[in-house]
């Protein structure tokens, strides 16, 4: 790749909750920014570029940056707002990385947020990629999207509802060890299987919650990064792409560019055995059931066999495959900010700062992803040493 080598030198996030009545959206962002700047041992004066974003239709504000930029003390700095449904945080981080790699900026701040307690009915409008003419007659949402994907996955793979429940239980076990996670429920397979059925086979517990939360990172080019921190997290590569046929799920129920993006990025970085060469995973799975197919697409499981790994108890923080040690998106989902939370969590794993949910051993390389609407993926590879 051309451009400067870059590193994440500071990360911050709010505690994620279903509701925050004590602060407004801009103040929520300020919390994450304060945390990231403190982590980077910087002040806003050091920052020369700010990239920010949320899933605007779920925000209720048009052009929220006009209000939030002053609130985070970033008036007069270069930068702009990004909006890209659930992928928003992914493009916020990718753009921040591009800005730092361009060599034009020395200290790039990326901040993403969502205050979902304010967004009643945003998904009634169809969520990402919705188009009133094509999907207006249906109540399209992530729930119906993943009901279909999961139905299709079960038909092709032979996995049962019990396996879907095992995935959710694993996520909950991880989330219970993450101080910032929202849902910590003490689940069992029976509890999940008896939970309220939203749209078969998706139960309420399988879907990501609505969350008020924000996350921020500070990114610098190599020279500057080495100066400001002893624990830089190097950004090895990142890639973003859309997929065809996203508007109606019927077009291709398993359509996903996650596998495509991963193959591309692995080739560029010379990764031949991702399961061995990547030590921690923070993958954006809007429904717990999606984790199965996503594990296959990122290359830790064979096609349509990921559910067997759960049957064999091979997935978890101290297990063979440390997949979503933070508890993932089904525990915490401030939607526009969710991909930045993935990058923050993957960075903490590499630094060894993930505390209770730290994956044991040295994490040399971690992978984080973003997913949005029904058809865009962003993949990030982070590593410990250059």
């Amino acid at each position: 790749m051309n451009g400067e080598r870059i590193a994440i030198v500071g990360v911050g996030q709010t505690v994620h909750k279903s509701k925050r009545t004590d602060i407004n959206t801009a103040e929520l962002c300020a919390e994450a920014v304060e945390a990231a700047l403190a982590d980077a041992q910087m002040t806003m004066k050091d920052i020369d570029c700010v990239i920010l974003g949320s899933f605007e239709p779920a925000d209720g504000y048009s052009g929220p940056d006009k209000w939030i930029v002053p609130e985070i003390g970033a008036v007069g700095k270069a930068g702009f707002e990004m909006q890209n449904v659930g992928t928003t945080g992914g493009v916020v981080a990718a753009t921040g990385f591009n800005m730092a790699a361009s060599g034009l900026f020395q200290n790039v701040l990326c901040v993403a947020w969502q205050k979902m307690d304010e967004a009643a009915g945003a998904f009634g409008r169809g969520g990402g990629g919705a188009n009133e003419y094509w999907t207006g007659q249906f109540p399209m949402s992530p729930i119906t999207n993943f009901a279909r994907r999961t139905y299709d996955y079960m038909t092709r793979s032979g996995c049962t509802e019990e396996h879907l429940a095992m995935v959710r239980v694993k996520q909950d076990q991880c989330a219970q060890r993450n101080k910032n996670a929202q849902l910590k429920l003490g689940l069992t397979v029976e509890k999940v299987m008896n939970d309220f059925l939203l749209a078969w086979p998706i139960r309420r517990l399988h879907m990501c919650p609505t969350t008020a939360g924000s996350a921020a990172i500070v990114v610098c080019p190599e020279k500057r990064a080495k100066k400001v921190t002893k624990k830089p997290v190097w950004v090895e590569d990142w890639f973003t792409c859309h997929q065809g046929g996203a508007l109606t799920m019927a077009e291709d129920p398993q359509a996903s560019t996650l596998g495509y993006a991963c193959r591309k990025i692995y080739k560029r970085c010379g990764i031949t055995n991702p399961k061995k060469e990547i030590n921690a995973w923070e993958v954006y799975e809007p429904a717990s059931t999606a984790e199965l197919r996503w594990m296959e697409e990122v290359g830790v499981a064979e096609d349509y066999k990921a559910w067997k790994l759960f049957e064999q108890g091979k997935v978890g923080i101290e297990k063979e495959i440390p997949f979503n040690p933070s508890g993932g998106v089904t525990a915490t989902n401030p939607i526009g900010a969710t991909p930045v939370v993935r990058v923050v969590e993957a960075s903490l794993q590499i630094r060894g700062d993930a505390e209770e949910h730290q994956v044991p051993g040295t994490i040399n390389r971690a992978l984080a992803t973003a997913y949005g609407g029904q058809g865009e993926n962003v993949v990030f590879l982070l590593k410990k040493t250059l």
Partner: protein
Amino acid sequence: MLKKEEPQDPSVAFRYPRVITYKHSLGYQSKFAHALKMGRIIATKCPVDGRCTIPPRIVCPMHHVKQTEWVDQGQRGKLLSAFKINFPMFDSRTGDLKSWETPIVSIELEGGARMDGWCSETDTEKLKPGMVLEAVWRPAEERQGRVDDILYWKPV
């Protein structure tokens, strides 16, 4: 399920309901809408791999070539998947919470394109992948060139 908790004190939080009207041009896809009014389903075809797609597109998303050919898709198709929504969800056309009793099905049409629709069979146990469904249309005078000109799909 989805409780509407109304804020009591506007100094803590308040709501602002809005209804906005947009005018969307269907552009190249207009032909599809005209076909619906005539009780027909058509799709664009990719000249590279021959795949037919609904929604129709002027350019194939995968091969980046112009799709000038339109193909009739027939009135029948094979069921791909079916599911029912068991909780009130927002109706995007009114903004209200609504119950949805009819299953949503994905169908692969005879012409190869795929689309979503409602199904007359409400017992999802009886809906098996591969079964043949047929389109049931609104009376011609009520059709508006919208996807719900097809009232539902019924098992043949």
